[in-house]
């Protein structure tokens, strides 16, 4: 194995490394979960997280949501409405219009339901890496509900990401050019022989595989678009390469793509792109930013070597993700001090990690989703096909207050009048975070408890000055720990700028 990818020495994997692993490969965990992971040792801990198919999880039923809300009109319906238009039968036209509006309303309710369902899944899943990668793919192959207005297609795509979360990038790319939501979002349903539409071909190279301007030309986009003609869907399914419609729409002529010549179709196009070295490096770099370090600009020389060597491994394994992720999570580089507690949490991470690690009540999923939106991450409504930029783009003077305030909401269930979040009376008792003191709350030394809570939440040894004001506060409040005081202390800790990092 390349030197830059060398493994962390197993004796260096203890509690804090396990916490780092759980934060980055998932959404953090409670002190006892972290301890359990630490006890497994590096090798087993990483395998446990990556080989998650060994962990039982309720399968997702395709019937969880209604697939028919936005179904296409039947032939008879189309006939009726055409006739009504021709004869000027306004009442019928209006009836169809109203019916469509009703269905759009129902579909908007369903997309809200799907978003809540996914959010709950992230909070409850026993396979955190699966959801973390599902979120990654959602940001990578970004597709937004607004432009497609079909919630079931968003659900199908979400399931595609979930099934292939740590599978094979090559397989996933072949699947994405067959995915109804993606096809609709990037207009490939309008890409036909006589009138090619370049949208999907362009983004496939620019955003999904090669990176902007890397190794391809405008002409490759044009030719790639021709290869993708006919890749469309009917109702909820890809039409298939044997269908009559595909044969009508597809341009079977000779194409030149990235200097290769042939009568390529969309799948050949994908194979040609994926054979480029730059593709493996582009994806590796993106995953590196997601899992290891999100500093703006180029990584340091050590990080650059790491990306180049990991990309090589990625190519060798034919884009299999499991060996890739295992190498990454076991590497010494991943646990370098510069890479620990140094990444800005995306809004979903902030929320899910808070609930999972502190075990606060979930309060209201709708409130959490709308808070994530205020913080810049409206899931299933990405700002553009580029997905979310991540890193420093999450943070500004307004989002920082939302980040602090939503934690106050999770901890207390209270909210200011102006937020439309549902007030929740459930009391949160954080005592369990101090279980390892093995003493009743009132007997635990205030300073020691606070030190531990700061360390646990910020993942690092706090500066003395940063603890002093918390201890002062607890002493002023009576000097004896109670669940209420713990909640207040946590409200302060989670308001520290350091809390925004993991």
């Amino acid at each position, binding site marked *: 194995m390349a030197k830059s990818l060398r493994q962390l020495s197993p004796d260096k994997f203890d509690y804090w490394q396990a916490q780092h692993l759980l934060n980055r490969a998932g959404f953090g965990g409670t002190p006892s979960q972290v301890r359990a992971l630490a006890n497994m040792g590096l090798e087993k801990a990483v395998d446990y997280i990556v080989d998650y198919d060994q962990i039982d999880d309720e399968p997702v039923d395709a019937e969880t949501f209604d697939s028919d809300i936005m179904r296409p009109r039947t032939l008879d319906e189309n006939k009726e409405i055409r006739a009504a238009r021709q004869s000027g039968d306004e009442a019928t036209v209006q009836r169809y219009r109203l019916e469509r509006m009703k269905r759009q309303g129902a579909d908007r309710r369903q997309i809200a339901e799907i978003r809540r369902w996914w959010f709950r899944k992230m909070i409850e899943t026993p396979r955190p890496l699966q959801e973390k990668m599902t979120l990654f793919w959602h940001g990578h192959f970004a597709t937004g509900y607004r432009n497609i207005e079909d919630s079931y297609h968003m659900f199908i795509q979400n399931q595609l990401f979930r099934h292939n979360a740590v599978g094979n990038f090559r397989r996933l790319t072949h699947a994405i050019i067959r995915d109804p939501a993606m096809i609709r979002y990037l*207009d490939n349903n309008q890409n036909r022989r006589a009138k090619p539409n370049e949208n999907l071909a362009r983004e496939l190279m620019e955003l999904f595989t090669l990176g902007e301007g890397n190794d391809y030309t405008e002409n490759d986009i044009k030719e790639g678009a021709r290869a993708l003609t006919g890749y469309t869907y009917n109702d909820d399914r890809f039409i298939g390469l044997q269908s009559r419609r595909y044969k009508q729409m597809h341009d079977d002529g000779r194409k030149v793509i990235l200097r290769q010549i042939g009568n390529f179709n969309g799948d050949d196009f994908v194979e040609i792109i994926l054979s480029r070295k730059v593709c493996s490096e582009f994806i590796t770099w993106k995953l590196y930013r997601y899992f290891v370090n999100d500093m703006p600009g180029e990584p340091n020389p050590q990080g650059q070597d790491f990306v180049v060597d990991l990309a090589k491994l990625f190519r060798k394994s034919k884009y299999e993700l499991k060996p890739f992720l295992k190498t990454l999570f076991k590497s010494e580089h991943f646990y370098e001090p510069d890479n620990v507690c140094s990444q800005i949490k995306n809004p979903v991470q902030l929320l899910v990690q808070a609930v999972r690690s502190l075990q606060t009540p979930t309060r209201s999923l709708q409130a959490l989703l709308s808070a994530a939106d205020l913080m810049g991450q409206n899931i299933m409504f990405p700002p553009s096909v580029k997905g979310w930029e991540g*890193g420093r783009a999450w943070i500004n003077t307004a989002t920082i207050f939302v980040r602090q305030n939503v934690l106050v909401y999770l901890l207390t269930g209270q909210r200011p009048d102006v*937020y439309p979040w549902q007030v929740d009376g459930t009391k949160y008792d954080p005592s369990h975070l101090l279980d390892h003191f093995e003493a009743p709350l009132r007997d635990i030394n205030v300073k020691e408890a606070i030190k531990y809570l700061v360390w646990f939440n910020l993942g690092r040894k706090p*500066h003395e000055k940063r603890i002093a004001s918390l201890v002062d506060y607890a002493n002023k409040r009576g000097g004896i720990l109670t669940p209420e005081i713990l909640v207040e202390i946590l409200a302060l800790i989670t308001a520290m700028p350091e809390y925004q990092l993991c």
Partner: protein
Amino acid sequence: MPDNHDSAYTRRLFLKQGMTLASMVSTAPLFIQRSALGLMHPAGSMLSSQPGIPDDRILVVVQLGGGNDGLNTVVPYGNNLYYNARPGIAIPAPGRSNGPQQGALKLDDSQGIGLHPNMAGFKELYDDGVASIVQGVGYPNPNRSHFTSMDIWHTAEHSAKGYGWIGKYFDNTCNGTPIPEGSIAIGRTSPLAMQGGIQKPVTFESEELFRWLGEDVQSDLDKPYTEINRSGVLEDVNPDSQMGFLMRTALDAQVSSERIRKAVARTPLVNYPGNNLAKQLRIVGAMIRDGMNTRVYYVTLGGFDTHAGQAQRHARLMLQFGQSVNAFYKDLKKQGNNSRVLTMAFSEFGRRVKQNASGGTDHGTAAPMYFIGDMVRPGLLGNHPSLSDLDSGDLKWNVDFREIYTAVLEDWLKAPAAKVLGKKYRKAKIIKV
């Protein structure tokens, strides 16, 4: 002289005096206390605004969400086709009435065009020569979905995808570094229009949310909260790291929060009505008065999707819109900022010419836009769209909205419009140059 001199301690001044917001510099410790304290001790009477300098020009966008009915806002009372198409909901000609429905306010009698009777607030500005209406604004191949059409307006792209036009304006003029609080949206969510690759908007619904709310839970938390954001901050921290960045931004947030809440807490120079749009514009007015560095503000009034029972609902919205922009302009005038601020109102589409069976109107296409400020070419601009030459029951547009954006960008914000919009459009003549 502008009335805002007592608190005009602006970022611009910071720069002049060698200070700046902490997030803009990498070695911060020295700046921390000074910038935090500095804002509480305004530096004398230095003015923030120098009228006429592009740097001080402000754009306020008012979004009328849901599809405002252009035909019942700017009323073609001289045209019988209008009354034929809308027997139940048409606005009568000036001086007439139809039951409780009053007649339109006269704008141009020779063309037979008037204004919704509840738009008196806007009419007053129009009569004073500081407001205009651009008629028949739209775009080719109109989309009748709220979402998509709104996104088309926001991105200025027919694909409805990509960054927002205001975001792209900043990206193209900010030399690669975002301007802190360069753009502020009042509301629950950030409009796509404000999203740039580099520049992101600051969004808050009310100035009261622009602060930490933990102290509402337990008031004693106030003191330690202040401490954790200031003491020991950036000690032993690499200023270029994510941590350094976060600590500086958190500090800026404290400064901005104090500043904005103080600004908004001041009694405005005029009375604003109590409606939601007025509340938003009041906040914007306060921030402008305070001399903030913000170039673009964004406010939203929703509820224009009047498919049923339109008459009353639309009348209420017209009243809100007219009264609110009237108060806002008068506020700016008292501040001495009326020549610095261009206000622009739009909706994602107009509504169909024919009313529907529920006393409402369905999604349509072209509609008017509204402009307020001393720099606008006042009056009724462009032609009212034809009521006989329709596109399957919908009005045809005369002006592409991107021609309007081009004018706003070039003639007002002095920005390279073609670069921002990715294409060269004809420039609508709406700004006095």
